[in-house]
């Protein structure tokens, strides 16, 4: 009975799937179905992704030449600020949690929906309202503070639309908190019978850890922006040094959120990759327990390292020392994860479908980004490369090489489940390889330029750096093509793609036991779970290529 249910062999009553259950615009805008809300988010963040991408395309074009041939410095400042604000808060932070997290969390734990479905929809509307503020800031003339809103520039000197942009980020923070509360309560209260904590797929753990950070860090971002807004609008002097205020305090508050926010962006990516690598290596994940502890450790320790962004800010030497030490510590759980993904491949039956290509790309790029992060945790090196392209390259390796690669990995992995359609695999493989190549072409030269001293955020630069910038801009063009390709062939598959079966990859996990696409309430009968995740082969055996239900049958004692 249980095995049959897990294998999805029960005949399902014929009723429309979630996509066809109501086709009016209102049935989408007023939906409380977590899967439809996931689609709403997916459309929203796709729009923001290409908005933010368009801004940086202009920036990269500008940097082709050292002398500022295309943009004024004002426009340049506004474009990279818009790029940062949009990409961080309107793409990366909501990307994997609010699309795949929303779609998969209830499915993976065997629940009919999230704990608070109306709050879930409300969170999407908050995101839209916040996006409107931020896009207004651009349309009305832009904001030039960079995504970090550093005081006293943002509070006293900038005469651009800081208020609208900060208000947008303030509001999207509440959307983030609402989603976090919802996911935490869902994971605690709605797990199917038998779905114990240590049988949860690692993606669920990742989303859970991410939600903890969202709930506990985002309010502090809200306060830091509220203080900037209060200073600009009401003239309160909190960060004004002339009136006794403390501008460095802003950085403490801002980075108390914004460093953990890096883990909001990368933990869900780790979750996605932890689902994909076992599936295409046909192996159990290596060291499941330690993968869980590592994620919780990253979420926790991530709160204690923010000061490594402030080594040159004038904070006390003692603080720099403490934060440097703590920043080295957090490399340990990250390294555990990289080693475990690699070890999961050992003696696997590896196949290189497009999700796997993206996932392997993630592991390589995340490792590069992570190792370059250790340079920045070390005070003497950091002082040398602070505010150079070295830092830019480092965090793009983590966020674009890491999180965006994982986003595309998840997109290709779960696309058949979400849409019920199959996409052309050879195009997908081509895009994956192109993305990896384009990414490295874009950001590897920036490590060199930065280490040689090219500062970030200037629209002109000495001619000796031109070679790196030309390489980088050419790579960005390749990367842009690689990002546009999936839009084309995935869009094509919606209309002409073959029909996807329940479980096209032969993957384990409850989401693959529902139909593709799933019915509105996910499961027609409450699933029961009697084994851990990643049951790709019998315990103690090596990998096989059989589908999981056959592996499971062999495993029954």
């Amino acid at each position, binding site marked *: 009975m249980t095995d049959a249910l897990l294998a999805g062999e029960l005949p399902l009553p014929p009723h429309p799937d979630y996509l066809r259950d109501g086709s009016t615009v209102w049935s989408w805008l007023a939906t409380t179905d977590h899967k439809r809300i996931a689609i709403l988010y997916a459309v929203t963040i796709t729009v923001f992704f290409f908005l933010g991408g368009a801004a940086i395309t202009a920036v990269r074009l500008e940097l082709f030449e050292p002398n500022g041939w295309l943009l004024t410095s004002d426009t340049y400042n506004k474009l990279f600020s818009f790029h940062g604000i949009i990409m961080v808060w309107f793409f990366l932070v909501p990307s994997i949690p609010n699309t795949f997290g929303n779609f998969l969390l209830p499915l993976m734990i065997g629940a009919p929906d999230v704990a608070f479905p109306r709050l879930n929809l409300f969170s999407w509307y908050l995101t839209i309202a916040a996006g409107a503020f931020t896009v207004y800031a651009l349309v009305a003339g832009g904001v030039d503070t960079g995504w970090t809103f550093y005081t006293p520039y943002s509070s006293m000197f900038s005469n651009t639309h800081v208020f609208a942009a900060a208000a947008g980020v303030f509001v999207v923070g509440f959307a983030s908190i609402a989603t976090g509360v919802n996911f935490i309560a869902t994971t605690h209260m709605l797990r199917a019978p038998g779905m114990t904590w240590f049988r949860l797929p690692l993606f669920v753990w990742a989303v859970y850890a991410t939600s903890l950070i969202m*709930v506990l860090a985002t309010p502090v971002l*809200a306060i830091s922006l509220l203080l900037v807004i209060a200073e600009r609008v009401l003239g309160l002097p909190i960060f004004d040094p002339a*009136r006794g205020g403390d501008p460095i305090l802003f950085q403490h508050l801002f980075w108390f959120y914004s460093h953990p926010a890096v883990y909001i962006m990368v933990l869900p990516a780790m979750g996605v990759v932890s689902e994909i690598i076992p599936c295409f290596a046909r192996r159990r994940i290596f060291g499941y327990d330690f993968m869980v502890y590592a994620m919780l450790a990253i979420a926790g320790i991530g709160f204690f390292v923010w000061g490594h962004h402030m080594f040159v800010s004038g904070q006390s030497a003692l603080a720099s020392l403490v934060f440097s030490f703590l920043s080295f510590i957090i490399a340990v759980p990250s390294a555990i994860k990289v080693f475990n993904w690699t070890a999961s491949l050992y003696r696997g039956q590896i196949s290189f479908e497009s999700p796997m290509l993206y996932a392997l790309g993630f592991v390589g790029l995340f490792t590069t980004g992570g190792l370059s992060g250790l340079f920045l945790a070390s005070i003497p090196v950091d002082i040398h490369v602070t505010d150079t392209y070295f830092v830019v390259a480092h965090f793009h390796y983590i966020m674009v090489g890491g999180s965006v690669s994982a986003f595309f990995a998840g997109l290709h992995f779960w696309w058949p489940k979400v849409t019920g359609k199959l996409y052309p695999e050879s195009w997908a493989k081509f895009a994956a390889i192109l993305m990896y190549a384009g990414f490295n072409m874009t950001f590897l030269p920036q490590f060199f330029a930065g280490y040689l001293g090219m500062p970030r955020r200037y629209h002109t630069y000495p001619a000796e750096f031109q070679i790196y910038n030309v390489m980088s801009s050419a790579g960005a063009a390749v990367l842009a093509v690689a990002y546009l390709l999936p839009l084309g062939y995935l869009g094509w598959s919606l209309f002409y793609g073959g029909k996807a079966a329940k479980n096209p990859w032969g993957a384990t996990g409850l989401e693959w036991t529902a139909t593709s696409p799933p019915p509105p309430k996910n499961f027609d009968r409450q699933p029961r779970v009697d084994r851990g995740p990643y049951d790709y082969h019998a315990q103690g055996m090596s990998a096989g290529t059989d589908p999981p239900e056959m592996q499971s049958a062999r495993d029954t004692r």
Partner: protein
Amino acid sequence: MSDESALLREPWFDFGRQREAGKFGIWVFLASETLFFGALMLTYTVCRIEHPEAFAAAGRETNIWYGTINTAVLLTSSLTMAVAAQASEQSARLRRLVLSCLLLTAMLGLAFIAIKGFEYKEDIDKHLVPGAEFALPQRGAELFYGFYWLVTGVHAIHLSIGIALVSRLFWVLLRRELPAKDNPEIEVTALYWHLVDIVWIFLYPLIYLPGRAS
């Protein structure tokens, strides 16, 4: 039983679990609120460490009477809110007690805001608003009042949301749209209300008590 089915919401099958989830969810949100107000209090603490004398002088200018009376008002509103929540759990026959306590809670909340309004008026008359007209000469005293206006404003917004929630609950229960017995909305609203009270409990010594002894 009919009470429970009237209160059951998607996606829950079991009312007990739904209730537990609501309570757990609001506690997680309150943890978030702790960091929200905590960050403001950190701002205050850092500024006070940098300007201890100015903060003492500025704290002396606040009106201790308004502050103390308002604290007592909010503590009393927590009492009525707690009684409402516990009565709703105890018995369906205590519906009237629940209703009257909710009404009292909302009115005490309004009283707090009214008293705060008088206090604001006095502060404005005494030129305690940061800016060119600011009354106190000490460097850093403006920071105290920057914090004062911001944090009391944010607290008043929270309290107003609380008053709106309690009033709505009162209205819904009065019209018998939902049963009062074991209604999870009462318990969730109560938890939020108490947190707003706790924030004020901490604001009281930060705003009204500095500099009284010197």
